[in-house]
């Protein structure tokens, strides 16, 4: 087939939108790259303005501001459409997928895509290394608020580090006042702990999905159902993770009577741990008396803890974005599994997704102690 001449046979080209037969190895046209590239560009064009504009003024400035928001949405939509085209082309719908193999040493016989995913993880390592460098630089370079207070040098307006673990692991100001359902641990750590287990379990379910997909003893329909079930479980666990994280950031948990809650875990936002917390009210009680601070024992400082919050939200947020990306891929994989896309001969994409998913899991295992516990 001729790619060089535009006259005559251009109608015979495989559609740049539709599914392809990849097995003959010739290059294929695709609208996905240009859509994804300009989609992300338009998204960023909107993004840069959406957060900086003020929602005040006349109808005209409202219109302009809404247009910025529209750019953001349009960019996302174009990107998503590009991603759809990308996957639509990949998925041949007949269960037979072309999986190119390596010819060169030392990877001979190994799937090319497997090497590529390892390469991708190598650069992902650097992404999180950079975030952890930032964290280490500021964690070690900025004085800890509690240490400053202990040394008696904390004053109003001090720039210091109040770690997220102060709010999460120690319960912050609530540690003394909350009626903890679990006495050995403040409630504020519970969502994070559940999240950790959710991710670890989801790493297990993705392996089960791979194992099931490769199981030749199952009938096709049974295999499709079970693979789909395991992938769906992974997806649900990932969703649980993100929901718990957003609740922990913005909403908070409260169970039972408001004055004597069974379970009480206020959100970080409600506790004032935000990136704009340049005048956070830091309270220390020197002597407790029946869940209330004794008369004259309460010390109050106004301090700047923006750096701790920025580091926390951006690092855990970047991890959250990776989880979200995994969820988008999982939605595609769940649909594909129920429609019979995975067979014992063709289960590699579960494996590749699993590699990525294990990586995301592993990063959380580092993020969790660094930001939630210490």
């Amino acid at each position, binding site marked *: 087939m001729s*790619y*060089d*001449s*535009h*006259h005559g046979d*251009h109608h015979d*080209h495989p559609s*740049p939108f539709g599914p392809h037969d990849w097995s003959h*190895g*010739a*290059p*294929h*046209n*695709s*609208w996905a*790259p*240009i859509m994804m*590239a*300009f989609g*992300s*560009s338009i998204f*960023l*064009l909107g*993004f*840069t303005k*959406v957060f900086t504009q003020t929602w005040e003024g006349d109808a005209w400035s409202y219109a302009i501001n809404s247009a910025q928001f529209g750019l953001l949405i349009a960019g996302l939509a174009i990107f998503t459409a590009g991603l759809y085209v990308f996957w639509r*082309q990949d998925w041949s719908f007949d269960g037979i997928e072309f999986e190119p*193999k390596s*010819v*060169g*040493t*030392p*990877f*001979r*016989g*190994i799937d*090319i895509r497997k*090497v*590529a995913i390892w*390469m*991708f993880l190598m650069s*992902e390592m*650097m*992404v999180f*290394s*950079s*975030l952890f460098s*930032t964290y280490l*630089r*500021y964690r070690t370079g900025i004085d800890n608020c509690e240490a400053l207070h202990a040394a008696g040098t904390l004053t109003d307006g001090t*720039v*210091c580090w109040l770690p997220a673990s102060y709010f999460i692991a120690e319960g912050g100001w609530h540690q003394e006042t909350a009626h903890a359902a679990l006495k050995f641990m403040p409630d504020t750590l519970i969502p994070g702990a559940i999240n950790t287990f959710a991710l670890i379990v989801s790493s297990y379910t993705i392996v089960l999905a791979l194992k099931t997909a490769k199981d030749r003893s199952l009938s096709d329909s049974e295999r499709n159902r079970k693979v789909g079930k395991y992938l769906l479980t992974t997806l649900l666990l990932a969703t649980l993770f993100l929901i718990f994280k957003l609740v922990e950031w913005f909403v908070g948990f409260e169970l039972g009577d408001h004055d004597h809650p069974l379970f009480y875990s206020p959100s970080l936002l409600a506790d004032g741990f935000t*990136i704009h917390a*340049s005048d956070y009210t830091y309270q220390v009680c020197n002597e407790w008396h029946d869940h209330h601070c004794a008369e004259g024992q309460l010390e109050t400082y106004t301090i*700047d803890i*923006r*750096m701790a919050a*920025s580091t926390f939200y*951006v690092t855990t947020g*970047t991890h959250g974005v990776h989880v979200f990306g995994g969820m988008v891929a999982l939605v595609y994989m769940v649909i594909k599994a129920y429609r019979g896309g995975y067979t014992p001969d063709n289960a590699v994409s579960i494996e590749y997704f699993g590699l990525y998913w294990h990586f995301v899991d592993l990063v959380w295992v580092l993020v969790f102690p660094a930001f939630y516990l210490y």
Partner: protein
Amino acid sequence: MFSTLKKPQNIGIIAILLLAVVMAPSVTSYPHGASGVQDSGCACHGSQADGVTPVLDGLPNELTPSMTYTLNISFTGGPSGEDPNAAALGGFHLWVSEGSLSPIDGDDKVKINPDGSATHNGIDGEDVGTGNDQTSWQVEWTAPAEGGAKFTLHVNSVNGDGIASDLDDWNRLNAEVGPQPVEQASGLTVFASSILLMITIVGGCVVWVFYRENPDSFSWDYFVPWLSDWLTTTDHKKVGTLYFLSGFFFLGVGGLFALIFRIQLATPGNDFLTQDEYNQFFTMHGTTMIFLAAMPMIAGFANWIVPLQIGAHDLALPRMNALAFWLNPAAALLIFTGIFSGQGADVGWTGYAPYIVSHTAHSGATLWVAGQILLVASSTIAGINFMTTFCTMRAPGMGWMQMPLFSWSILVATLMLFISIPAFGIGLIQVLLDRTIGTVFYEVAAGGDPLLWSHLFWYFGHPEVYVVVLPAFGVISEVLSTSARRTVFGYKSMVFALAGIGVLGFIVYGHHMFTSGMSPVLRFVTMLTTMLVAVPTGIKIFNWLQTMHGGSLVYRTHTLWALGFLVTFTLGGISGMYFPAVAMDLHLHETYFVVAHFHYVFVGGIIFGLYSGIYYWYPKATGRMLNEKLGVMHFMVGFISYNLVFWPMHRLGIQGMPRRQHTYFITTDQYFALPAEAADWNMMITIAAFFFAASNLILVYNIVVSALRGQKAPNDPWGGWSMEWLTTSPPPTPSHDPHNLPVLQFEEEHDDGDPGLFGRWIQWMMIAEDGGEEE
């Protein structure tokens, strides 16, 4: 969608609309405005009438600088003359381009507007003799210290009924005094017009190329499929061509930036560009040249040559490859958005914190950062793709140590790029969030550390300079060994030198931060490691020399560029050796010596290397030979003018001319003394820069003309023996038959059946799909 363009009247309407859009902004800048007198600040009413005659007396014939003149403003005619007891008689509005207007002491009939123009004072409905009740006024004008001025006078003749109505008349007078300046366009206008011109030319070229592909059966019906084939292509050769087009386009844009601010720097104390524009222009020059010109051109070479050279039918991930390309123009869109709104990034290509997160940095810096994030994504995707290709798609028989040196250089460069660029990406994301949602990573007041940005940036930024120069090394190795008609001297040492630069490149970046207050211990360490870089680089230089020594050199155009590269790159390397010495660096830091050094390695190293590659591989890519006469002319003009541009900068730097500054002054001041000769050198640099720019047009002309009428190229015009010369010129698609890949036959037969220790280890790690523990 293009069918509407078939009708000539539609094209005419679009052309008129375009013209109107282009004209509209410039028209408003005239003092009398685009839509009449209202825009000029004159609230004249009624209609313009020839019967009203404005008079402006008191302007001298010979203007004395800074002298104050009394101007008499009056008018005759119109409806005002008939009733001496009328409520109002008339008004005026006088606008002057230079100097300043002021009322005569004690005169309450004239007032000065906020914009400096003069007008009558007060609206008088009661006939009490204030400014509105006159037909003549007096105002003082202080002439400017040099040059002349333009006057625009509006007078309004009022019928006296006290109402601004259609019965009133007005008229205008334009006057000039003294020497008039030559009309000057602003740098921004020049730049925007040039871009518009370039887009028009490129658009024209696209249509013309489409026509030339098959002139006999030309039809617009095929245009959309043809264009969409290019927009959606994933073939490595076509994507490579797209990379080249984009790279050349932005090389032109970056060059325009350079020429425009070279005009600014041609004479001391010049104000062709404002300080604000200058900051944006040098920022965009650096960003464009490195990220949008050099990197895409290298990616273009890598795309075109690597699969051909290692015997692969395409890259490993073709659609990812197309995505990596399309992110480039998408990012350029963001990076340039600021410039066209007059608020382009003014942060330098390094974007140093804390300025970049401050509110004084232009708003375009936000979009500049956003665009860079897309470029980081592009480089990462391209990196994954190329690394995978190298690992998995080398032809049977080609072990690591049989790979041609160009492929090796791309391999090392890609590995460096893609290990270092995530740090830059994360830094950019932090800056973007600082500038948008208000995180405080680089906010000094909240404990932010500007040095962290420098570390993240230079951890990427220094490997980046090797990322762009290593492919040029690879090209030179190919070109010199082919031209010398022998294998390259010391192949293994060349590979280890590349790898050595790859390792050293990561531990030297501190030398960019000697003056930043970094730890003295780190300064000492990076001083030593930086000096060490000279060792592998020196090995390469001497190997190239030895290749020529043992060979029999053929002086084709690509050989000339390679020889030119050897000269200029070595000079750039030697001037580079001044910087690792901390004391010397503190002295030369932020001077033109630095500018001279990195242009010697960037232009003399990278661009010369890439030009050499263009002359070398053009016949393979297009099936046509480039014109050798034009090539030699390009080399002679380019090489000489290039050295004239950048060699004097060493001298200027030692004399103390600072870089990144809007202008300079010839002064005898003890601390900021630049001798008078500095002005002459700068003028010479500017003139030579225009010659250098012109020399590139020779290349463009050569490429276009040779594509049309060049001699047909054989499969292997130069006698090269790497695998790209096995294919036809231009190569087929897929580039090598995937079912019948070429097999490398080597003197020392590489036993590719045995993967070796490392290979066995990798296979153990990765569990091969066939065999292994899977039943």
